[in-house]
Each structure stands twice: as structure tokens, then as C-alpha cells.
């Protein structure tokens, strides 16, 4: 079989970077590994830049097992840019580690590789391979704070629940194979006939929804996320929140929009239900949270609900909205988590009430937090507004007005808890008014997140162009 390896440049470079970091960490003495974070970020940034050479390329490898297309490329770029930001945000955290500094970054890049493979997969097997590479790496990263009981607890919970969800997913994949007699996603279109829906197929589909629903933390598969988010090292949490979620959404789109548009009526209602539940329950439970990471975890559940509306639309416009929203969600989420990283790095606390008076202690952090939270709430002119506009207009066009209304109402509810953080930061009195200093790498992440979130809100056209190209891979309405 002839394989054009140049098509796999991104994957090979990422794998090379991960292995290189691993080897370097063995060679370089422990006290001289300070530059690893910047090295990782720079490496991923270069790969990110190279990835633009693949815009517009549309090829398949090994009989459709692996796809190089605009959709995959969009999500690869998402994983890479998120990787760059997370690597930079990890620097102060890793400096506090006693050992395994190089391994941390190596694992981070392996997780990125997992996402990259997962979003490029055109086959159930390669998809699962990427998924497990990402997930297992995250198991390790979650428990990376050795000696910290919360981190260990989070790690254990994630391993056990993650394994269960993988079991469900794998069972579902095997059912699907049993019905369709193929693992190549693009062939599902012809092998699964509309109107011939067998119980086994339904069973398989539900298992798939359960397995991926776990990854995107949609209600009712979200239970793990607050505990794991809280316990994991915060940079890992932020990557888990954006990367893992985006990759799972990409898998949803690939399998359901790409492989089974002919039986839309079955899965659209299901996604609509999950979406509504996630929006309602995620936003409601976020209200009483006192810990910023837990609050962001529940807000992430709600965000998964908003993004699911893109699946509910079942159209190219829906995919475009979904892709657009996930990309801007990267910046808003990493921005918010990075404020939490800087804050807990300086004060040791993740509690919202301790953030009182942050605007006095570090105006930049407060401003970034405010912009990111308001973007998630969908307040114009920030990027989140444009994202919600695309998503909701896509479902309204499909006559799902009720879901858009649920989304709007729950967005209003979300403003309450987002603004209570803002109120605390801007109007609260700090118990200790001393200024907070944050390292340069964090400042960089903060400024990038804020600028992108504001810029794409005011001028979303560059990203909508990319998202449209990504969506056009699927020949839907």
C-alpha cells in the first residue's frame, strides 16, 4: 500500500515533539529544564503554523481510515493552539514540581497527538485509538500532583469512570460494526439504510452517545467533571475542558453528521434532549458553586449544551456554529482558567470569595476574567455572542425554536453567576490588598485570550471563513 507520508506531517511532527521532549528530559539535568515549557509552546506553535498549509487539502489515507480534510484540520488547529496556551500556562505550575518536569510536557504533547489523531480519524478503530491516547494521557496528567490527595482522588475517579465510559463506547462501536459490517465511517452512509433500524443499531448508537457524552460532559454523563476539574492541576483542567471536549465533538460530527445523516430523525431528538438538559442543569448547579474551578466545570457542562445545538441543527450551518463556538471557547476557557492558575499560584486559593478586590490587586487578571466570563455568557460584542448567534440561528432555521429559547433563558441565568464573580472582583474589598504578581508566560496567555475574544467578537469573519470551510466537508443542507 502506498501511503503519502507528507500528508501526515502534523501527526508525525507532534509525535516527534512528544518523544523528543521525553528524551530531552532524560538527558538534560533536572535543574536545567526551565525552558521546556517555552520549548513545548514554540514547537506546537510551529506545527500550528505548518497546519495552515493543509487548509483546502482533501485526501484520505489507507482506504479512508484516516482523513486529511478541512474539518479535521480545523480541529487540529484548535488542539494545537490550545496546546500552546496550556503549555505556557503550565510553566509556573511545573516549576513547583519536584520531578518529572520534562515528562509533564511530553504527556501534554501526547494528549495533543491523541486529539489530532481523533479528529482526523475516518474509521472507528483509528478514532478509538486517538481517543484512548488522549484519555490515558489525561489520566496521568490529572494525578500529576503527587502527594496531593485531591489530585489523586481526581485521578482515580477519572480513571475508573473513564474506563467505564470507554467500555460503553467500545461496546457501542462493536454493535455498530455488527450492524454495518464496516468500520469506515464514510461507508456507514450506504450500509445503514433509513427505515431499516434494528434494535442492535439503536443500542449501539445509544452507547456511542453515552461514551462521547462522557467526554463532552453533557448531562447526565457529566458527574465526573466537577470533581476531576477541581482536583486536577489547573493547566491540565483547562486542557481537559477545551481539548478533550472539542475532540469528542469532532467525533460526534464525524460519526453522526458524516456517517448517519440518513437516520437524522433518531439522533436529533436525542441530542436535543441532552442539549436542553445540559444547559438547564449545568447552569443551575453552577449558581451555588463557591470554587472557581467547580463553577467553570458546571459552566462547561452548560457550554456543552449550547454546542450540542449545532448537532441538533443537523445542517452545515450547525457544524459551522459548533466549530466556531468551540474555537472561541478555547480562548475564553483557557483565559479564565489561567487567571485561576495565576491566582492560586500567588495565594493558594481557588475560592471565588478570595478573589474579592482582584481588580485592585491585578487589573489585567480581573479584566481577562471578566471578558472571558462575559464571552461565555454571550454578551456582545465578545466572541461568545457571535458563537451563540450562529448556533441558535442554525437551530431556529430548522424550526427548533424551543431549544433556542431554552438556550437564551439559560444564558440569562448564567449571567448571574458569571457576574457574581465580576462583582466580587470589582466591587469586593480585598482582605489582603497587596498586588499580585504573575509570571510573563501567564501574562502572555491572558493577553492573547482577551485580545482574541474581543477581536473575534467584533470581527468574526476570519474564523467564520475557516469554520465554513470545515463544515463544507459534510454534504448536508
Amino acid at each position, binding site marked *: 500500500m502506498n501511503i503519502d507520508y507528507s500528508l501526515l506531517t502534523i501527526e508525525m511532527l507532534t509525535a516527534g515533539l512528544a518523544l523528543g521532549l521525553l528524551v530531552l528530559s532524560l538527558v538534560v539535568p533536572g535543574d536545567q529544564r526551565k525552558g521546556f515549557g517555552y520549548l513545548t509552546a514554540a514547537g506546537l506553535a510551529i506545527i500550528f503554523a505548518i497546519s495552515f498549509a493543509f487548509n483546502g487539502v482533501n485526501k484520505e489515507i489507507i482506504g479512508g481510515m484516516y482523513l486529511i480534510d478541512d474539518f479535521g484540520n480545523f480541529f487540529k488547529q484548535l488542539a494545537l493552539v490550545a496546546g500552546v496556551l496550556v503549555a505556557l500556562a503550565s510553566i509556573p505550575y511545573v516549576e513547583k514540581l519536584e520531578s518529572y518536569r520534562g515528562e509533564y510536557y511530553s504527556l501534554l504533547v501526547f494528549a495533543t497527538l491523541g486529539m489530532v489523531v481523533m479528529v482526523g480519524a475516518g474509521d472507528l478503530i483509528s478514532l478509538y485509538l486517538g481517543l484512548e491516547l488522549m484519555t490515558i494521557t489525561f489520566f496521568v496528567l490529572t494525578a500529576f500532583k503527587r502527594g496531593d490527595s485531591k489530585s489523586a482522588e481526581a485521578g482515580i*475517579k477519572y480513571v475508573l469512570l473513564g474506563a467505564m465510559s470507554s467500555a460503553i463506547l467500545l461496546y457501542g462501536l462493536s454493535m455498530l460494526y455488527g450492524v454495518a459490517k464496516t468500520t469506515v465511517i464514510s461507508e456507514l452512509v450506504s450500509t445503514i439504510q433509513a427505515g431499516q433500524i434494528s434494535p442492535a443499531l439503536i443500542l449501539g448508537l445509544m452507547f456511542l*452517545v453515552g461514551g462521547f457524552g462522557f467526554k463532552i460532559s453533557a448531562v447526565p454523563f457529566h458527574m465526573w467533571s466537577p470533581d476531576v476539574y477541581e482536583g486536577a492541576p489547573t493547566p491540565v483542567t483547562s486542557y481537559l475542558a477545551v481539548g478533550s471536549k472539542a475532540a469528542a465533538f469532532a467525533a460526534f460530527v464525524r460519526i453522526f453528521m458524516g456517517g448517519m445523516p440518513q437516520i437524522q430523525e433518531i439522533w436529533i431528538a436525542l441530542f436535543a434532549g441532552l442539549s436542553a438538559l445540559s444547559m438547564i442543569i449545568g447552569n*443551575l448547579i453552577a449558581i451555588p458553586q463557591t470554587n472557581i474551578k467547580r463553577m467553570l466545570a458546571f459552566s462547561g457542562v452548560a457550554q456543552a449544551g449550547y454546542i450540542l445545538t449545532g448537532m441538533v441543527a443537523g445542517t452545515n450551518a450547525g457544524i459551522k456554529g459548533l466549530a466556531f463556538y468551540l474555537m472561541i471557547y478555547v480562548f475564553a476557557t483557557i483565559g479564565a482558567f489561567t487567571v485561576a492558575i495565576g491566582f492560586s499560584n500567588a495565594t493558594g486559593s481557588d475560592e471565588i470569595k478570595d478573589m474579592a478586590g482582584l481588580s485592585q490587586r491585578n487589573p489585567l487578571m480581573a479584566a481577562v476574567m471578566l471578558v472571558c466570563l462575559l464571552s461565555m455568557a454571550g454578551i456582545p460584542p465578545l466572541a461568545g455572542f457571535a458563537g451563540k448567534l450562529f448556533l441558535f440561528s442554525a437551530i431556529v432555521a430548522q424550526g427548533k425554536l424551543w431549544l433556542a429559547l431554552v438556550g437564551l433563558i439559560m444564558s440569562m441565568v448564567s449571567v448571574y453567576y458569571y457576574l457574581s464573580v465580576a462583582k466580587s472582583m470589582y466591587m469586593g474589598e480585598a482582605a489582603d490588598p497587596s498586588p499580585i504578581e504573575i509570571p510573563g508566560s501567564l501574562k502572555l496567555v491572558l493577553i492573547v485570550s482577551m485580545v482574541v475574544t474581543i477581536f473575534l467578537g467584533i470581527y468574526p469573519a476570519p474564523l467564520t471563513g475557516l469554520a465554513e470551510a470545515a463544515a463544507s466537508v459534510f454534504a448536508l443542507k
Partner: protein
Amino acid sequence: MIEFAMQKAWLIPFLPFLSFVLIGLITKRSEKLSAFISIACILTSFVLAILVAVGIFGAGEEFIEKSFEYSARWFSMPGLEISMGVKLDPVSSMMLFVVTLVASLVQIYSLGYMHGDPGFSRFFAYLSLFAASMLGLVIATNLLQMFVFWELVGLCSYLLIGYYYFKVSAREAAKKAFMTTRIGDFGMLLGILFLQIVFGTLNFTELAEIVPKYADYGITLGTLNLIAILLFIGPVGKSGQFPLHVWLPDAMEGPTPVSALIHAATMVVAGVYLVGRTLFLYKTATTAAEVVAYVGGFTAFFAATIALTQIEMKRILAYSTVSQLGYMIMALGVGSLTASMFQLFTHAFFKALMFLGAGSVLHAMHGKVNVWDFGGLRKKMPYTAWTFVIGGLAIAGIWPFAGFYSKDEILLEAFNTGHTGLFWLAVITAAMTAFYMWRMIFLTFFGEEKAENHPHESPFSMLLPLFVLAFLSVVGGWVALPEHGWGYYIRLGEHEAGHAPAWMIATATTAAVGGIALAAAMYWKKIISYEAVGKAAGPLYTLSFNKYFIDEFYLWINHTIVDGLGRLLYWVDIYVVDGIVNGLGFFTKEAGAVLRHTQTGRLQNYALILFAAVVVLVLYMYFKSPAAAMIVLGGGN
């Protein structure tokens, strides 16, 4: 260079905006640096604007029929495509030149005028943002882009009028300006929405092509007229046309350079510019055009009658602005873009000159505003006085000053299009304009010096803009001389009418000279007793002096109807709406608190819910799908 300036014309609004951001975020604390950045940016924009003007006008016919246009897609949704771009044609290049010129001069002037003000940097930041918004409005390619900048201009004027926020009157004036123009903006927004719904585009170039074919889009001429009138309500508010003119005189509460900026080149002419940009609409919707013409003509006359009796320098200038804007709107209403834009062009110079001159006087008189308190100032402030006199000659329309040419152009257009009534109204207004302007000049700069006043000439930074503007007020009209062919440059569409006949020039000049002579007789040489005239006019004088009681009338409406309605709604709000909202809020918070208990932190529970959820999903789907349910219930196949 010219090529660069045209390709990068977006830099013209961007640079002042950049200066706003820089001052606001970084250099706020250093007054000198802030002023330097601000002036450097606006001057660079000015240079670019000149280059653009050279490029556009130098190309002759090329850009008259087809504008130089480029844009970036800003936002798109099915059925709605919004872009932000740059549209360069003779009209917009002329505006770019005027706006950057006046803004530059005002900023230089402010160096002296605002010296020692605690908010010095803030002032320059606002001025920059104001200039940026106005320039963005000028280069807009479509109505939505224009609306965005239009609102920004409104915001900036609010900030600048209320600049002395510790003064109650300034705050009130700022609110009044904002709310009054908001009323206009609402009508305008409706007009824009209608255009988008009917024609599916807001781009000027595209609209100009398809609006004449309105019948293909399923609307009648009546509907098109309605749309055009709705759109016109925006300019009525922004350009201070009757009945929404009330905010403009109050806007004098801002620092004087702001008054010059607002009244000469920026905010108020935005309305005129908008009508000019959408003139194709009014060429088709002729009924709406008549409305525009008569609103303009009436406003010109009406504001002039008020200006006759006012006693504050800036207030007289403000009503004169309202009146002059009326001229411009009237010219558009009778269908002449050339006459209107020409008047806009010359008016920018002499009105900015007079406002800055008035600022110089007020600066010297330490807060005295009543013209009756001044007198003989020309001796102590010669430069201010003589430049002001040039402005007075220009606005009165005396040959060879700028106003002569532009006013003639308007009179000619009104007459040629058969609006004889408007023509005579404009002539009478011209006489009144000459009278009230020269009344102010004689009372301020001529006559006896008053012993209690200790005027002094202003610093050079304040005089320099006066000189430049005085020069332009003299020569600004000469572009209309046949050999320069203004009508040719600014023409859009058919060729404009030729020269005014001798009798018309004679009439207009007689009106202007008559006005000045009467003012001289009453207020300088005191041949005619102004007190006797005032008494003879009786109730007319009272009406004019009190501005026809329109402010009082609006106040009464506000106090009785709006406030009454407000109180009623307040009750509903407190007892009905708040009750529901608070109840919902309480319910939502409680729901969150209850749901929180599902998050036990126990792994077993989580696993249980995970599997249970999958089982429930599967069962639900089986029973939802009848075929599948049959199989399950029937025991499989």
C-alpha cells in the same frame, strides 16, 4: 503615496482611534504626551486625507460615476451580509478633508484653551474618538456601518457636551442631546431595517442601482416615501432640524473647541451627509424629498428668527448653525447634492472660525457670556476680532467670501427647481443671518470699551487655527469659480445648473448688505433705537427671545405625560415585574442548591448514574421507535 493613501484610507479613522486607545490605556497620566499623540495622529490622517483628495479629484471623471470601494466581510448570516469598508468618491474625500482639517485645528486650539484643565488627557482622548467616529462614518460603504459610527458619534458628543460633568447644566445638556438624537436614530434604524428587508442590501452602490426599480421588490411608491421619511428622521435629530433642534443650542455647555467641532464639521453635518449619501432614494421618492426641502427651509428661517434676539454669543452661533444646516438640508431636498455639499464645505470653515473666535473671546472674558457685557474688544484682541469679522462677512454671503458662492448656489437650485416659495424664504433668512451675526459682532467688538473688562489676546496656539480658518473662509468659495469647476468635481449624476443670473446675485447681496447695515444702524451707530424696535415687535420679540417656548413645551410633555406614564410603569415594575423576577430568581437559585446535592462526590453514585442514563436512553429510544418496540415486546426476531 497617493495610491497608498487610497488603498489604506481606513487608516484615516483608525489613527485617531489608535490615539484614543493609547491615551486611554497608557499615556493618560502624561498630559503633554497625550496631546502630542492625539495631534500627531490627526495630522497624519489629515495628510492622508489630502492625498486621497488629490487622488480622487485628480483623476477627473473616473471616481464620479464609480466610487473607489473596497470592503471586508464583517459578519454574515443567511440573508444578511454585513461588511465594513471604505468608499471613496468626491463627496467622501471632500468630507475627509474637511473633518480632518477642522479636527486638527480644534486639537491645536485646545492646547491653549484647555491648558490647566484637570481632564486635559481625557479631553484629547474624547476628541480623538470623536474624530475617528466621524471619519468612520464618512467612509462607510453601507448604512449599517454608517449607523454604527453614527451612534459612536452620538456617544462621543454626549461625553464631550457633558465634559464638565460637575456642572448640572452640562449634564442636563448632554442627556438632552443624547435623548433627542436617539429619537431621530430610532426612526432612522426603522428606515434602515425596511431597506434591508425590502432590498436585501444596505450597500450604497447597490441600493443606488436597485432603488429606482422599487416596483420589482413589491413595494409601492408610497412605501418608498415612508422609508425615505423614516430614514430622514435620523438626520432631523442629528443635524438639529425642526422639531428636534432643541438639543443643539444647549450643547454649548461643552468646552468651546467641542462646540466648534460639533457644529462646524462633524456631528451636525453627519445628518446632511447621510441624506447626501442616500440622495438616490430621495430622487425616486419625490414626496419625501419635498418634505426634506420644506423641513430644511423652515428650519433655516425659524432658527434665524430665534437667533435675532439671543444674548449669549455661543447661543447665537448655535441657532445660526441650525439655520445653516437648514439651508443644506433644503438644498438636498430640492435635489442638489452639489449646492448642499458646497455649503457644508464653506460653512465648516467660517463656522469653526467663529466658534473658535467666540472661544477666544470667552477665554479672555473669563466666563462672561452675554454679548451686552462686551464691547470694543477689537482694540485689545485685534486678531480675534478681525478674523471674526471675516467669518461674519463669509456667513452673511458678501462677495468674495466663501459664503457668497455657496449661498448663491443654493438659492439658484431652489429657484431653478421651481421652489419659488423656498427661494424667497431663503433670501429673507439670508438677510436675517446677516443682521444677527453683525448685531453680535458690533456689540462684541465695536462700540465703547467697558471699564470692568480686562480682555487680552489669546495665545498663539489658539490664534493659529483662527488664521488658517480665516484664510479658508475667504478663499474656500473660489473652488466654485468657473475655472475651478466645483460643480464638476462634486457632481454625482446629471450636471448641475450654471450661473446665477445677475438679479439673483443682486437680491442676495442686497439682503446681506441690508442686514449688516440695519445691524450697524441699531447697535453700532445707534441711529435706530433697538429698544423701540423690540417694543414695537411686542409678542413677536417675546416669542423669539424664548425660542417659541418649544423647550418649555417639551418639558411640559415630559413632566405630565412621560413622567406620569413612568410613575404608572414604576408601580407595575415594583409590584408586578419585580415580584415575578425575584420569584423566578429565588426559584432558580433554590433549584441550583437542590440539584447540587446530586453531586455527592462518591464514585459509586457517579458510575450508577452513568450506566442508568445509558439504560434509560436505550429504553426510551426503543419505545419511541414503534418498529423497534414491536421487536422488543415480541421477544426479538
